[in-house]
């Protein structure tokens, strides 16, 4: 069989034959006709303007996801779903450096959620969701949901007092859904209450089902960005061609971004060193909940908002709360970027209200 011919423009751009890199490149290109892909990737550019920094948010969240995968795999070596608390205690107190690895897993989870919020809101305010990028936005929304499920499922796994009650409260919110609430909550819990069966299904979700889902969706999300290019804000797109500056992604932007990843690595180690994650006493389903128990900060605003709708009107609160993510999800179909349309401004206003509300309620939740 004949080899695939190497395209002439490839010959000009790959390293010369006598160098090792040139040999490897030719070896691969003769077997796999992937030059169009490489060429396309080499041309991937990032626009340079005063909002460029926001383009980094997704990449930083990706960094934290990678940390989660590595530390998660390490923790899985010693975690036992049949003996959840004892195995986590062993990791934290007996296994060499187990404490640090577990704390890094905890901090990286929190920072990942933080940077995802920054990524989501910056994409929102830069209106990156507009056609043709609606499905990048939708896959992103799905990813956000999956990550929050990661957080919720992972939180239970240590099976300490905090995990147990947080999960019990969280799932009892599901019970309140009309018609299917009780049934759905039972399915999620694996029974009428949070038990070892809940751990079983949360564990499978956390280490297999959700990772597969996230990898698939992330692949699609990144694929869309590769073939469509990075979105440009209006102010930049309106500039005349000569004034537009771009960085090539490979390798300029990437190498500029790498030290920032290194900084976040140091930050994770510093946080794990200074603020290691505690392990509360083992869950006792019949004991009283710990004093001052609150959800983690990323669920705190919802928790605090629901407190405003006690008793009878709780349903009103839940409906209102559901409208917010639905509103954000459907924004690409509402704000179509028609210049004379006011919808763009309304969408921005909506975003500002949601963001401010989340911040206020989170802070309020903390101090109360």
């Amino acid at each position, binding site marked *: 069989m004949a080899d695939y011919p190497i395209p002439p423009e490839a010959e000009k751009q790959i390293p010369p034959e006598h160098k090792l890199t040139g040999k490897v490149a030719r070896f691969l290109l003769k077997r796999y006709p992937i030059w169009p892909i490489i060429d396309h990737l080499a041309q991937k550019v990032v626009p340079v303007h005063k909002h460029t920094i926001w383009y980094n948010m997704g990449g930083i969240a990706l960094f934290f996801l990678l940390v989660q995968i590595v530390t998660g795999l390490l923790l899985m*070596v010693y975690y036992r779903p049949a003996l959840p608390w004892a195995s986590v205690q062993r990791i934290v107190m007996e296994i*060499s*450096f187990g404490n640090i690895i577990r704390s890094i897993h905890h901090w990286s989870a929190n920072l990942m959620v933080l940077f995802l919020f920054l990524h989501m809101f910056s994409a929102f305010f830069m209106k990156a969701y507009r056609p043709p990028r609606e499905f990048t936005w939708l896959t992103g929304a799905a990813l956000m949901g999956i990550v929050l499920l990661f957080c919720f499922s992972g939180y239970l796994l240590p099976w300490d007092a905090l995990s147990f009650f947080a999960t019990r409260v969280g799932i009892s919110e599901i019970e309140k859904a009309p018609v299917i609430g009780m049934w759905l909550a039972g399915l999620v819990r694996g029974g009428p209450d949070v038990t070892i069966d809940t751990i079983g299904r949360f564990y499978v979700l956390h280490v297999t089902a959700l990772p597969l889902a996230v990898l698939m969706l992330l692949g699609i999300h990144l694929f869309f960005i590769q073939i469509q290019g990075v979105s440009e804000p209006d102010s930049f797109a309106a500039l005349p061609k000569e004034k537009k500056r771009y960085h090539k992604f490979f390798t300029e932007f990437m190498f500029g971004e790498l030290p920032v990843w290194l900084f976040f690595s140091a930050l994770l180690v510093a946080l794990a060193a200074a603020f290691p994650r505690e392990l509360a006493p083992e869950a006792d389903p019949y004991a009283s909940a710990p004093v001052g128990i609150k959800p983690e900060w990323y669920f705190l605003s919802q928790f605090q908002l629901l407190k405003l709708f006690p008793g009878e009107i709780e349903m009103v609160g839940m409906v209102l709360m559901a409208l917010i993510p639905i509103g954000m999800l459907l924004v690409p179909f509402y704000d179509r970027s028609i210049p004379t349309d006011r919808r763009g401004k309304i969408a921005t206003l909506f975003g500002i209200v949601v963001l401010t509300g989340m911040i206020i309620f989170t802070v309020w939740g903390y101090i109360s």
Partner: protein
Amino acid sequence: MDKNNLMGESVSKRRFLQVMGTLGLGWLGAAVYPVYKFLSPQAVPDPFGEDGRALVDKVSTADVARPGMGKNGSYGTRGLIVFRDSQGQLRAFDSKCTHAGCNVEFQGNRFYCNCHGGTYDLNGKNIAGPPPRPLTELGVVEEDRAIYVFRLTDEKTEQA
């Protein structure tokens, strides 16, 4: 501090990268050391306590009350067989077959390994089958209705 190098004239870019790359790898090894320790087998505590004795689990004095009785048990994280020989003396051997690690069985007049047919006499010597070495004997003593084992080299100090 070699000031000439810092001037940047005599060091080429490639050498620079090589130096930094090597340093990077060296430092990386140090930082990744915790992951290596995390995954490495964790230290197993010595089953023999401060006094050189380990308590035997799963074998009670009733199990070896009369000559000819023997049972598999454990000490620390290791397996053993305790039995009483025809003279009425308590004996104990590590139960791990020296061939491939299966626990051997006490059969009254010998130890037999079900995995590959290895056979040992009551002194632990390998007399038939694949095992290349005898079983390790342990010193054994009965006290307060419990059984303790100790390393045989410590025998003299134990009885002092």
